[in-house]
């Protein structure tokens, strides 16, 4: 069966199955198990209403539990066992083995660099773009163009930026804009930008900054529009200049949104994989945790160390997870 046809059948079975499940389970509940008739009508309605939420949520809870909750614990278990020894419990062996691997520390160091630079730069550019575009007539078009990279895959972006960083031998025309500009400005010889340790990390980060700025801009622009006019007007009346208005009046009022944007991008950064995988594959000291983990799991087939690396990523996400849950619960009250 051709994949397209298979896909169509799956859509029909999947969607039809879902609809059938919800419909018939509700019918079963209302018509057969607890019909709202007869002597127990009142009690049956209550019983049915107590069960119904779980019918509605059943598939979702099953999927979430199986595909997200269970793996957290399973990965923890795998990180404490050794696959080659038949899954025997080895305590912290995988973690100590990982701690002795230079590549791991390189990945940790790079991840911290990413965490420092990418959210800061994306938020800063996003804020700049939001503030500037809110004030001009063609602002929406400008926004839409800056936002566009959001739709581009990390792999597509990797190709786009590989062309920018491309280096050719000195005696032929440069087709990478960076080297062309560099030579115009008096550089001696074309540089293969992605192979200079440390700086190549920055060149990879630029790709993610380019993608995430649009996201930051959209959220922050909405926050800026939410600022009450009166506060700005009052500041103008008091003689504040545009910079004072921005930094002293607007910034404090959107600080909450800035934090949200920052943490959201932080999570994207922690999971960053495709960009590094497609552009350098962790060579030339550009390794990051997610790619290190992939290397260990699927190239070296070392599930123990790979799971340990995944747990490190989980550990780094946990503070944000706790903070998000805390805020969500506060909002619900």
């Amino acid at each position, binding site marked *: 069966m051709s994949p397209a046809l298979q896909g169509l059948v*799956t*859509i029909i079975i999947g969607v039809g199955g879902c609809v059938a499940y919800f419909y018939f389970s509700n019918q079963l509940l209302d018509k057969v198990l607890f019909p709202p008739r007869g002597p127990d009508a009142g009690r049956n309605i209550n019983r049915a209403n107590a069960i119904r939420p779980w019918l509605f949520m059943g598939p979702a809870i099953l999927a979430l539990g199986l595909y997200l909750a269970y793996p957290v614990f399973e990965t923890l278990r795998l990180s404490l066992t050794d696959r080659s020894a038949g899954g025997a419990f080895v305590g912290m062996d995988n973690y100590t083995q990982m701690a002795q691997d230079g590549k791991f520390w390189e990945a940790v160091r790079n991840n911290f660099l990413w965490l420092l630079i990418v959210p800061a730069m994306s938020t800063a550019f996003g804020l700049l773009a939001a503030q500037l575009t809110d004030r001009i007539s063609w602002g929406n078009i400008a926004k839409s163009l800056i936002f566009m*990279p959001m739709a581009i895959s990390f792999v597509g972006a990797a190709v786009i930026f590989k062309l920018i960083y491309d280096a050719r031998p000195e005696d032929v025309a440069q087709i990478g804009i960076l080297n062309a500009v560099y030579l115009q400005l008096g550089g001696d010889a074309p540089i293969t930008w992605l192979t200079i340790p440390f700086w190549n990390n920055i060149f990879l980060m630029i790709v993610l900054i380019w993608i995430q700025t649009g996201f930051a801009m959209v959220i922050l622009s909405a926050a800026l529009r939410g600022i009450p006019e009166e506060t700005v007007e009052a500041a103008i009346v008091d003689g504040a200049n545009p910079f004072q208005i921005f930094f002293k009046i607007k910034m404090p009022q959107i600080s909450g949104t800035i934090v949200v944007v920052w943490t959201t991008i932080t999570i994207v950064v922690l999971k960053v994989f495709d960009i590094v995988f497609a552009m350098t594959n962790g060579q030339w000291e550009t390794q990051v945790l997610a790619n290190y983990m992939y290397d260990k799991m699927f190239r070296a087939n070392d599930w123990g160390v790979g799971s340990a690396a995944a747990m490190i990523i989980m550990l780094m996400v946990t503070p944000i997870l706790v903070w998000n849950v805390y805020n969500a619960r506060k909002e619900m009250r």
Partner: protein
Amino acid sequence: MDSIAGKKSGLTWAVHISVAALVLLWIFPTVGLLISSFRTTDQIVTSGWWAALFPAVQNETLRTADPDDFRVARDGMFVVEGNLYVVDGSVDDAADVPAEISAWGTSSRAIDDYVAGDTADLGDGEMITVQSNGDYVWVGDEEQLSGRGQRVFVTAESPPEFTLDNYRGVLFDPANREGMSRAFMNTLTVTIPATIIPILIAAFAAYALAWMDFPGRALLVAAVVALLVVPLQLALIPLLSLHNDIGIGKGYLGVWLAHTGFGLPLAIYLLRNYMVGLPRDIIESAKVDGATDFQIFTKIILPLSFPALASFAIFQFLWTWNDLLVAMVFLIDSSGETTVMTRQIVELLGTRGGDWEILATSAFVSIAVPLVVFFTMQRYLVRGLLAGSVK
């Protein structure tokens, strides 16, 4: 701010210019790839894509036809006539010459001595005239017009030239060397069920979390928020083993299930937030009229939630279309029959690293669909982002 204060300052201009600079900086990389995908291999390797936007100025050394074979006697002199580009072999007919000669010369030391239409005096009555399209008339006596043709150094300007050949090669070449047309179909096969199925499951759950009272509801909402940020990296090995154990293995079913699972937290979160905001009166009066929860959901909540459903659908579509990791782990087996576009492009980066016409075109084929979705449905995307920016 300026308008509020009632004054337009020089700052407004600064804003316009900065925004223009920012926008140019942001679209510049994509435009580079787009333009490269319309250039021929030769053009790509000989000049940067930015050069394609302007008429290319080229210095060439051309030669007239061999006088021994082509000279004709006229008025006591010998004449060789023709077109420099036809002699060169770059075009078949003088009418097709793409370039326009602006300056030319007969010595390598002075290649721009004459402009088009000028006649150069080569001494002792020998003369040559070159027109802007490369037509020349070379006049001299028998001795002067012998041996090899006269060298002419031309400075020519050819207009920007673009081709669709790359797209023809990548998408419609029956040999399908780049594997992109198959990868395109595979990506589509992954994406559509992986977008539709989670919506349905999430919508029911979101309704329960928003409008039904039951113990543990707050806890479940908190769990959904927590699962929003759980890195899917953790799920790779446990789920792959699970899929292998229950006999799904690597394949479409596995990748659909995985995308469904990974997309659910955002779906439930977005839809619940939206549904909570729907007016309570509608739902309560429907209940009073005897509607069941199932009817309320399908007849009232679902239609009203269309904007939120659309937001999530776009997110999930972009995410599954652009995904690399999940497809590599759950779908692509060693046969490579089920490869998706992102994986294929990474493959091409490795094997065809220098062939930018292939890379640029393949990348653009995979970027094009999300871009169309992005520009047509941007409104919903922004709304979804604003509602779900916890992720």
